[in-house]
């Protein structure tokens, strides 16, 4: 019973909003492909691509997955933990960088 009230409370986006988000996602994908075509230096390319991908992911989660219209407690329960765990995976980056220098010369 209370469920009905809760569902009614959730205000989703309008068709116009979804179209705008879709166009923004397409434009950002276009910029990414353009960067690949221009063969930008690797580090700048990686930073730009990751930055754009994170913005795209945020748009999809917020609007398409509706998280913007959910309670803040849902976001706080799920996402800080996820981001923290993903950042923890960077622990092995040092090893990955070191290994090429540890190989004996051929």
């Amino acid at each position, binding site marked *: *019973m*209370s*469920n009905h009230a*809760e*569902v009614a*409370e959730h205000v*989703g*986006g309008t*068709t116009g909003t*979804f*179209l705008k988000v*879709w166009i923004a*996602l*397409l434009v950002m*994908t276009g910029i*990414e*492909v353009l*960067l*690949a*075509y221009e*063969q930008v230096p*690797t580090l700048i*390319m*990686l930073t730009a*691509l*990751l930055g*754009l*991908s994170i913005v*795209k*992911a945020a748009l*999809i*989660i917020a*609007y*398409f*997955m*509706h998280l913007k219209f*959910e*309670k803040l*407690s*849902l976001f706080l*329960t*799920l996402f800080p*933990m*996820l981001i923290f*765990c*993903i950042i923890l*995976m*960077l622990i*092995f*980056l040092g*090893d*990955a*960088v070191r*290994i*090429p220098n540890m190989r004996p010369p051929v």
Partner: protein
Amino acid sequence: MSTHASAVEPAGSVWEGGQSPYATNSKKFGMWLFIISDSLTFSAMLFAYTYSRVTNPDWPKPFDFSPAVIFSTIMTFCLLSSSLTMVMAVHAMTHGNRKATVRWILATMAGGAAFVVLHLSEWMKLINVEGVTPFKNPWGVPLFGGTFFALTGLHMTHVICGLIYLAIVAQGIARGKFKAEDVEVSGLYWHFVDLVWMFIFPLVYLMSARVG
């Protein structure tokens, strides 16, 4: 009855347990938990791919801008557009329009199916023409094939499972079963599959693009 009794009591802070701390149904919350755990699986695989690449300075760049990158851009367009049609399906279902919901879900499935067909044809070209397998490839870094097929294969499996899931939901709605929340939950899964591709496409394809 107990819910009626508790409804009269003051709800208190959401962090004290509240009555419904997330104000969401359990199906949706369950799907969110699955998505979070699956995100960690894909993150681990993307990190494995990236670290393998960093440890091998002679990592191959097997994707010509034309046709491979253009091909994968079309695949990205298919997935992004299928996400839009899925949102429209959820929108139609919340307004009680079952016929439109089925049509939008079928459009979503068409986008997903196009993605799988294009992806499989790209795989076949890599396997049959270029001679890439999970264990060897002509460019000398065997890990490329292993990480590439594991990552894109797991993603494609998710897309195929999504197509089956959407087919079940669509036929259920056509028969008058399922509620708006069920379409929303299937939508969450579909958008997640799209979301993962937003990282695989730049990190695997665009970072390995070869122009000219």
